[in-house]
């Protein structure tokens, strides 16, 4: 079987005696790129291109495509030597000068019949004399010299060096080369019939290279026991860093022997002073690494953590955002604003509070209209301020439907103080798409009818306490009269509100 030793799978090395036009580097000839080599525009022949093969080869034939676009070289000389030693001189094998009608050049040792060589049409055929057969059967470095051009820059479209591993090489080398080649074959068979076009072949190579780039996880990020990437690195008293999960697993095994948790490296039991600590600095480096490589599949399968127990609020944040979404209901805004207008508020604040003392539930809910704004951040911030200006407090009096009897004064007072708070908080916020979070701080978690009550959110977005919820018999919101399903009630966690 003949192999093309210029194929990238067989790892040839290529060098050129001159500089090249950008994008037409000499390495294009050995990496499946269809662009070819083009010397820099001011370069005149001769140009030497040296190809070093991974082993000594027996040359069967060499195919040269001389043109890149309209640039065409017309004279080539073929040299060769059998060692990589730079002091060894090159021996001239053959040369060929193309006429304008020739599409390419074929070199072959004269003991091979040119008819048997599958050369493209219109290729000039030049033989290599038999008496230098010792070189063609044991070639290590091949030099192609562009010695003549047709009023153009020296160019070389493509080169193929077909041959076999030299019979003088060891069996192991032969086996290695064939392994490399068979990998190539496998890839070729994967790519469809379209392989013939150069472009697709180039693409196939690219894809393969992408697939090959395996993620290198730095050793320091790996757990020394399991050799997996650490998600929660901890430093043991012995100084070793392992993953929290590994220690837990080790602890379970130790428990089987009835032993307390100890350092797996020293066996010394942990105590108040000798205990593992979080390797925070390493953790942040690992997190950065994960973030940088988050597009890789290997990384996607690695479990993530959301901080440890003390800052688990990160997880809570999502829920926090959910609550105000309900508040951002436009219908609710309309209704409450209209209601507020209709209301004739006759009672003073004191009266109101007295009344609420029974079963009343005074939970101010902020109503914010949700306008989708794609404008810039400044506009957004202004809008947010406007929104908070327009926000109203709605007191959900669930006992006797007197939610509407609050004074304008009260609303005004609370509004202004609330707006002040919101504005001051907004100034410190960089992300304007999450104003909800801020307003939530202002939702009082205190229930007036009971201390430390558990709060629930009805599907109509009204918030009531557990006591009130249990007092409702017909599954109808006392504030807006909406019927709800018991399954739709959501508990609001106090920890979020109190944050």
């Amino acid at each position, binding site marked *: 079987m003949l192999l093309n030793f210029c194929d990238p799978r067989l790892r040839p090395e290529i060098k050129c005696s001159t500089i090249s036009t950008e994008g037409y580097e000499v390495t294009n000839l050995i990496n499946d790129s269809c662009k070819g080599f083009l010397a820099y525009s001011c370069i005149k022949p001769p140009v030497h291109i040296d190809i070093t093969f991974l082993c000594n080869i027996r040359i069967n034939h060499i195919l040269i495509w001389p043109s890149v676009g309209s640039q065409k070289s017309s004279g080539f000389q073929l040299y060769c030597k059998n060692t990589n030693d730079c002091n060894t001189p090159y021996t001239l094998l053959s040369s060929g000068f193309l006429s304008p009608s020739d599409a390419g050049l074929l070199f072959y040792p004269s003991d091979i019949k040119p008819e048997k060589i599958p050369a493209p049409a219109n290729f000039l055929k030049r033989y290599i004399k038999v008496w230098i057969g010792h070189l063609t059967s044991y070639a290590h470095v091949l030099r192609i010299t562009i010695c003549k051009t047709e009023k153009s820059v020296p160019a070389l479209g493509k080169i193929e060096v077909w041959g076999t591993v030299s019979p003088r090489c060891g069996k192991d080398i032969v086996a290695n080369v064939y392994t490399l080649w068979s990998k190539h074959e496998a890839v070729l068979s994967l790519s469809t019939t379209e392989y013939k076009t150069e472009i697709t072949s180039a693409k196939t190579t690219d894809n393969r290279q992408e697939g090959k780039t395996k993620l290198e996880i730095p050793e320091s990020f790996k757990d*020394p*026991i*399991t*050799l*997996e990437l650490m998600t929660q690195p901890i430093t043991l008293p012995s100084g*070793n860093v392992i993953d929290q999960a*590994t220690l837990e*697993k*080790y602890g379970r*095994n130790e428990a089987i*022997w009835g032993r307390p948790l100890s350092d*797996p*490296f020293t*066996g010394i039991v942990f105590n108040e002073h000798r205990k593992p600590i979080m390797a925070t600095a390493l953790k942040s480096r690992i997190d950065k690494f994960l973030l940088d490589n988050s597009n890789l599949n290997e990384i996607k399968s690695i479990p993530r953590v959301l901080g440890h127990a003390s800052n688990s609020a990160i997880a809570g944040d999502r829920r926090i955002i959910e609550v105000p979404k309900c508040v951002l209901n436009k219908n609710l805004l309309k209704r409450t604003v209209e209601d507020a207008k209709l209301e004739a508020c006759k009672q003073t604040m004191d009266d109101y509070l007295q009344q609420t003392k029974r079963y009343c539930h005074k939970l101010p809910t902020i109503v914010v209209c949700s306008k989708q704004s794609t404008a810039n951040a400044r506009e957004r911030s202004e809008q947010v301020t406007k929104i908070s200006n327009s926000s109203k407090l709605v007191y959900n009096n669930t006992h006797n439907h007197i939610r509407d009897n609050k004074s304008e004064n009260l609303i005004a007072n609370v509004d202004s103080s609330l707006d002040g708070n919101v504005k001051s908080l907004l100034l410190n916020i960089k992300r304007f798409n999450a104003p909800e979070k801020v307003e939530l701080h202002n939702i009082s978690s205190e229930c007036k009818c009971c201390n430390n009550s558990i709060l629930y959110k009805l599907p109509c977005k009204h918030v009531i306490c557990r006591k009130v919820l249990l007092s409702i018999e017909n599954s109808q919101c006392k504030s807006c009269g909406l019927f709800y399903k018991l399954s739709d009630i959501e508990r609001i966690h106090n920890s979020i509100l109190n944050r």
Partner: protein
Amino acid sequence: MAATSPSKRRLQKELMSLIREPPPGVHVDGEMVGQNLTQWIVYMEGAKGTLYEGEQFQLQFKFSSKYPFDSPEVTFIGGNIPVHPHVYSNGHICLSILTEDWSPALSVQSICLSIISMLSSCTEKKRPSDNTLYVRTCNKNPKKTKWWYHGKKGIILYILYILCSY
């Protein structure tokens, strides 16, 4: 070769390091182990200047899928089983790190070193006193034996755990 499971990955790495820099007198047949990572044969040579100088031993390691959290099963195999007060004639070794005192921080290399040092510290070549009884009654797997380690005194008592009772 892509090692997928954690135990495989760890074994792969240990094999590489054992092939690359083995402890003195220890070598492993990488090709054989490469075929089946869960069962290794490690060749060991008695250290110079000890009673076992010039002797060749074979150690068999069997790893469970829980390795490194679970200790490997280590026995001497082959024709030459060292005559040692802690080694039974069926190849079972009475060494605490192989069962109770195992730690995932230990490795094949550290086991090999422990066994070499155990052999090297021997002053009198003899079988354990309860050898005949143990060999007749023990389980094939040395890990099923409940050992009673008596440290340097060299007196070993054991209680057999009969598998059937599980």
